[in-house]
Structure formats: structure tokens, C-alpha cells
């Protein structure tokens, strides 16, 4: 998952970078303008990649938070509770993000 992110995040940032114009980035002033946002939102490629990026980032992040909290010497009940909370928070975030990505297809 971490490796997926190492590749996906630079690609995500590249969209918004002016410096990388020679590599095909649209540049900051264009990338965040409504027209470009709308055109990206309607593009199924971006929907899929944004959803995949969100999934990977959420998984990696929630797993990390869970590991950090596990190191606090919890009892088995609290360990389970932490796992459930992390899973629900991650699932919630992913569900919200996926909904936004799909709803944006109809902008």
C-alpha cells in the first residue's frame, strides 16, 4: 500500500505543479480553476485514480494510526475497540470520498 502511495502521490501533485509544465502539468492557475476541476471530475480516469488513491491513503493511514495506538499497551478489549474505530473511520472516509468522486461525474 505504501508503495502504491509513493507512486500515486507524486502523480497527484504533478497535476497542480507549475514547475512540471514541461512534463505536461497544466500549472497551478489552471489546475484549480473551475473549468479544469469540472473537466477532471467528469473524466472517469480521474474518478478511478482518485478513488484508488483515497483507498490506498486511507488504508495506510488508518493502519498506521492503529499501530501507533496499539503500542500503548492496551488490553485485548481496547485493542479490538481501536481496530473497529479505525476501520469505521477509514471506511467512512473512503465511502464519503468515493461518493464525492462518483457524484462529481455528473457535474
Amino acid at each position: 500500500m505504501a508503495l502504491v502511495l509513493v507512486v500515486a502521490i507524486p502523480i497527484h501533485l504533478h497535476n497542480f505543479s507549475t514547475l512540471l509544465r514541461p512534463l505536461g502539468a497544466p500549472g497551478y492557475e489552471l489546475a484549480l480553476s473551475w473549468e479544469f476541476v469540472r473537466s477532471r471530475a467528469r473524466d472517469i480516469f480521474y474518478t478511478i485514480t482518485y478513488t484508488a488513491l483515497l483507498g490506498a491513503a486511507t488504508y495506510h493511514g488508518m493502519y498506521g494510526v492503529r499501530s501507533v495506538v496499539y503500542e500503548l499497551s492496551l488490553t485485548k478489549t481496547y485493542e479490538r475497540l481501536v481496530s473497529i474505530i479505525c476501520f469505521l473511520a477509514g471506511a467512512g472516509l473512503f465511502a464519503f470520498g468515493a461518493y464525492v468522486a462518483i457524484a462529481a461525474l455528473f457535474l
Partner: protein
Amino acid sequence: MSTPTRVHIKIQRFRPDEGHPPQFNEYEVSAKPGMTVNDALFAIKEKLDGSVSWRVSCRMGICGSCGMKINGRWMLACQTQLADLGTDRIVLEPLPNYPIIKDLVADLTELYMKHRSVNPFIVRTDREEFEKPTREYVQTPEQMEGYLQFAYCILCGLCNSACPVISTDRKFIGPQALAQAFRYNTDSRDEGAPSRLKVVDEPHGCWRCHFAGACSAVCPRGVDPALGIQLLRRDSLRHRIGIARPKHGAAVAAAGEFKRRKGIPGAPPKTV
């Protein structure tokens, strides 16, 4: 660096029966060239305050008893020259992450229990030969080099004390035990790797390590437990995905298989 003529030592004192938190007592002793922190502690105990307590045994860095924090660094008191500290003000504290019994004496029970949990001994299936040996187990120098570094561990406990994970996670097995698990798994004479991997291949086993490397940085014997843990993880991964490298087990030498070189005396006759 030259030895200062007098050193000012602050020692963290703690008496369990007194019921108040640890506090520092200050002492001043004269220092001679070649004096170690251990020697300074003996000078304090002999001349200034006989109640100062710390663990000491061999005075030569092989027993692992005198681990403590010296000016914030994890060190063995017998191996630390006063001249090397670069100051005449010394602060001595017991090892963190262990309960304190008294003054500079830490309770290392947890260290030993975690060490025991990884079966730190050769495990073999040929029990008869193992318990009543009649021949030798053959091991090449290359096989020995694969684990020798980790066999130098003296169980001083500095690594577990410096580990950031152990500061909150008491269930973490610890760098010392994990390095010893790797040492025995890699030993060609050992056949206990599957049972040891069951103990270390756990969330609070080798996967809890984050390679901060503090264990290797403080090890006074150069054992490099961080390396042992990463290699152990590599082995666990290989074991899990089914590409474990077969270990070339130690052969049992047949009687008379190895000819003794000329001029080397044989063993004395058995007395038992």
C-alpha cells in the same frame, strides 16, 4: 581527553521503603587517569556514602551488570572512562523502561522473561544424541559467521531500555530477544526455527519494530540487534510466503571422521 582531577557526580537515589519519588544526591571525588565511572562509584561507596547501590560484577564489560545512563547516554559504567566523558560533571540515572529496585539498580526480570520466551538454546529433534553426545556437530566457519555477531550479547539490557517501542508497549518482545531468536534460527545446529517464528512472527513480535536503530547505537558489544531484527523479518516473510531458504543443518560427524592434525593433543579421558 585528559582526566579531570575532581569529578562532581549526581546520582539518582531511590529507596522503595521511603515512599517519595527519586531524587538526586551529589558527591565529589578525586579522579585518577584510567578511572572508570565504576571506580568513581566505588570511591563514593567506600568513602562518602555506603548506601549507594548499583550492579557490578566483572568490571570488564562482559557480564552486562552495570548498565546505566551516564550523562544521558546508555553505557556500561565499567567501560566508560571519566576522561572520555569530556566534563567533570556526571549525572548517573538507572536504565529507563525498567522498574527501579533501588538507586541505580533496575529490575531486569522482564528482559529475562522475554529472552526466555524465544527459546534461546539449540533445539534438536535427535534428543538422544543431543543429551548424550557421542559425536560432534559439524559447522563451517561461514555458517558460524552468519550468527556469531549476535552471540556476543551479554544481556545488559541497554537495547531494550533505549528502544522507543518498549517505552509504551510492554508486550513488545524487544530487540535483545529478537536478535537472539535470529541468532538461534540462523545457527545451523538448531532445528527450532518454526517454533521460534511462531513466537516472533506476531504483531507484538518482530513486526512492532520500526527500525529506529537505537538498540544498535547503544549496544556496548557491537551486537547490532537492529540488523538481527530486520533479517529476522526477512526470514519470517520468506517463511510466510513459502520461499524460506533451506538451512544447511549441521551434520553429526561420524566417529573418527575428522583426523586430528599433528601436534594437537587429544582431549583428556572422560571422568563422568
